[in-house]
């Protein structure tokens, strides 16, 4: 903890014991059993839960990223390509959309996503990569080689 002034370095116990405890009880209001209402148990449980919350803030993005990747993969599979092929094809075509944008397009704008898949497919096919799926040659894609 950072103490920026001398005044803050002292143990600030708050104005009133009741309201100091209320601050803790507000955080423990959804706990189970006596961890909700008994202060000496609640303060320990709140400290513990705040530690979990700190760790969870990072872990949450791993889960969300997994969901995005799964969504891109399933949308790409509808057009016969895998997640890996789409990502590789788009990167080689210098379309640097991130996971969130691609997943949003897959859900809300399927036709836009399909055109992106077509571009990725064409690029992957041009470069002769083996990760290509069984999609037929897409129509109306303008690429450098043609």
């Amino acid at each position, binding site marked *: 903890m950072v103490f920026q002034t001398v005044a803050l370095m002292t143990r600030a116990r708050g104005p009133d014991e009741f309201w100091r405890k209320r601050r803790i009880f507000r955080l423990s209001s959804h706990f189970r059993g006596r961890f909700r209402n008994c202060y000496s148990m609640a303060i320990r449980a709140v400290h513990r839960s705040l530690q979990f919350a700190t760790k969870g803030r990072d872990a949450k993005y791993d889960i969300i990223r997994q*969901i995005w990747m*799964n*969504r891109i993969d*399933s*949308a790409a599979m*509808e057009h016969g390509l895998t997640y890996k092929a789409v990502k590789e094809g788009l990167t080689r075509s210098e379309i640097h959309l991130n996971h969130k944008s691609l*997943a949003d397009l897959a*859900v809300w704008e*399927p036709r836009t996503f399909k055109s992106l898949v077509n571009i990725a497919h064409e690029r992957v096919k041009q470069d002769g990569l083996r990760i290509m799926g069984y999609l037929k040659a897409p129509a109306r894609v303008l690429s450098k080689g043609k």
Partner: protein
Amino acid sequence: MSIVRRSQQWGTFARMWHVFDATWQDPYQSSQIIAKYLLGRHKPISHPMNRCGDHVVVINSSEIALRGDEWQMRVYFHHDTYHGGASWTKAWELHKKDPTMIMKKAVYRALGNNLTRHQAYARLHVFLDDKIPLEIQQNLSSQIKQLRPVPQRLDQISPEELENFPQIVKLPETYVLT
């Protein structure tokens, strides 16, 4: 909500019925794909809190193929909670007893251990042959691609086709084909 939007909602979240032909397929590998459909992971709208899993009807589960010596070596464990109540059943024995059991257990395991497993497993329908009840048959609208093509057996090829098949050497009349 307008009728168009409402029907769009119905169309998005409607449960589809897929059929999977288990003939000559590895149940443990195909269960990974079936689990994906049961949990709705094959849809772009999939989310752990989103109920978008589909129904999967597995047919011909008596015709599954296990790899290598797995019929003898794979063992299913059961304990009836009494002393000495442990029992180990080999895969071929279980398959003889119930031809749908190996497929069901494989999918049950592939669904993962969380609260969605029970509901997803209820959407699985396994049949030992291709005879499906009519009310299930009427729901089917899609087919899941098999992992590998089913090979053609020699006794399934017609005698005319065998006669006309080009031969490298001309066998003598007295040569007996076994």
